[in-house]
């Protein structure tokens, strides 16, 4: 580790974890029909179980998050090199009686970031940035308020996330993070990096995103960041994993953003290893066609 000078063992393994959605209002034994917050279950199937219930539409009981991190600590922590953690660390806004507020979103993200720090840090009092296992978080569409909406930085929100994730983000990237809520983590110094990409700046559902062609657009600025970082990684002979919350597929991204992002991924195929995303809860993969993206981009331009 070039910063701490410590020796580190390389395992050739990493963890991708996403969409934890811990819900502090979850009550074991309450009614699933009342989003597991209140109410008397109408029948056996309507009882909210301790660790949650698949396909119920409820978020994660906090104990599910805690037991998951405990299991990771006991079974995986000492066998992995880094953790890619792709966002959505807050309950959904699905209870009119307890609407989700921005303060709650920041508080819960703080709690989860502290748990991840506690789990993977080296416990070095003098240096909170000293981790046994590097952690690379990215921003989810539920981690912002209002839902999906995220403006180009620097804003209160981008600064708040720099504060919440300050132990994960290299200090020299504070200003570019304030603008883009994206950053680069070197998981093997000089060799292997992971990009934490704020995909909300290209997400169709973000009302502040219109396209990726005008310089004022968040997506345009993000692609400026993305292209510059890829070029620098290439010049250093490094390889890189891409990561973010919303998968860069045509269904989710504005067309011009999808074409440009896919084209960057294609033209830097000498250094990009792959992309890891969350948001959709369904475990699957999508092949994206760089050549087709180029054609579509120039046709539309």
């Amino acid at each position, binding site marked *: 580790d070039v910063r701490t000078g410590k020796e580190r063992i390389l395992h050739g393994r990493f963890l991708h974890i996403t969409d934890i959605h811990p819900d502090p209002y979850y009550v074991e034994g309450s009614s699933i029909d009342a989003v597991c917050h209140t109410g008397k279950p109408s029948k056996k199937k309507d009882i909210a179980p301790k660790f949650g219930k698949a396909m119920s539409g409820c978020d994660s009981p906090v104990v599910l998050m805690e037991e998951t991190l405990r299991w990771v600590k006991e079974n995986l922590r000492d066998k992995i090199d880094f953790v890619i953690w792709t966002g959505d660390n807050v309950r959904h806004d699905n209870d009119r009686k307890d609407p989700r507020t921005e303060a709650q979103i920041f508080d819960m993200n703080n709690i989860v970031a502290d748990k991840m720090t506690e789990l993977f840090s080296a416990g070095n009092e003098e240096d909170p940035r000293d981790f046994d296992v590097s952690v690379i978080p990215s921003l989810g569409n539920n981690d912002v308020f209002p839902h999906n909406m995220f403006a180009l930085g620097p804003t209160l929100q981008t600064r708040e996330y720099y504060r919440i994730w300050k132990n994960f983000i290299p200090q020299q990237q504070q200003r570019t993070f304030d603008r883009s809520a994206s950053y680069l983590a070197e998981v093997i110094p000089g*060799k292997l990096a992971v990009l934490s990409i704020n995909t909300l700046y290209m997400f169709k559902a973000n009302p502040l995103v219109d396209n990726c062609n005008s310089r004022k657009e968040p997506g345009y600025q993000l692609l400026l960041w993305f292209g510059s970082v890829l070029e620098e990684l290439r010049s250093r002979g490094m390889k890189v994993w891409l990561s973010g919350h919303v998968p860069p597929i045509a269904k989710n991204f504005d067309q011009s953003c999808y074409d440009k992002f896919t084209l960057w991924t294609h033209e830097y195929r000498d250094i990009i290893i792959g992309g890891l995303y969350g948001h959709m809860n369904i475990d699957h993969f999508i092949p994206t066609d760089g050549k087709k993206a180029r054609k579509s981009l120039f046709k539309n*331009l």
Partner: protein
Amino acid sequence: EQYSRVQEEGATDNGNDENDLNRISDHAMAASEAHIMGAKPSNKEAYMGTVRDTHYRKVWNKLERVDVEDVEGDEMKKDKRKKDRKKKKPINKEELIERYSIVNIGGSVIPTFNPAFRIWEYNISAIANDSGFVAEEYKPWDEFFESLDKVMEDSLLEDSLSENEMSSSNNHLEINSRKAEKRKNKKNKKDDKTIPIEMPDKYKLGPAYVPQLFTPTRFVQFYADLEKIDQALHNSLAESKDVFKYEVEYTSDEKPYSMDSLTVGNYLDLAGRLYEDKDAWEQYVEWSFASSGYKDD
């Protein structure tokens, strides 16, 4: 609102308004869909069906056209391909693979289905005996990110400047504004730094395409079977930590994945197999929902 506004104004230039309306409704639908992401899952099998019938079918079609010389095929395949070849130009497999990249979408901890996460394994053999890395040669990133911050700042300034220019020139040269607009568009495309240049030939394909240092070699998918855990919790008075656990759901090197590595070529072959082989597809869909047994209503 936009729709009614356009209707009232009477669509002047149909094409543009049509596009605008499509884009607005597209964004609005994505927003509403993103909002209900938190509710009970629905139409997810239908979504996986579109993944198969659009993305995987396209790959399968192209794989079917891979030039026979590239692939040892049995006689049947050769004949079939010869017939197909008359229809469309054959494709070189390397070129086909090179045009794709893979977006991996993870299972989640939230019990939309069962809680899940993934361990990825990657090739480090070359680095083990690579004494090439010397800490002294390490190049810090401060300078780069300082300059990048300036690039982003300048591009925003540039935009407001060019906007002023455009508005002043348009005011007193109304007649030329269309030409100026055209000139601006051409200039924009040329100096649009968010469009990459083609990868120079001197760079070789990276770990996603050719097995080498950092190529992903295997993955292990973990999940927590909540139904089983809940039953165990009720059947015994054991502590949660003795009952709650993740277990291996599947790995990339077992059927039907049977991937000996995780390069783009391996993924394209898998996509083709999943499109062609019904049993493999059904197993894939069951795992995509973290073995929760999810079905559309």
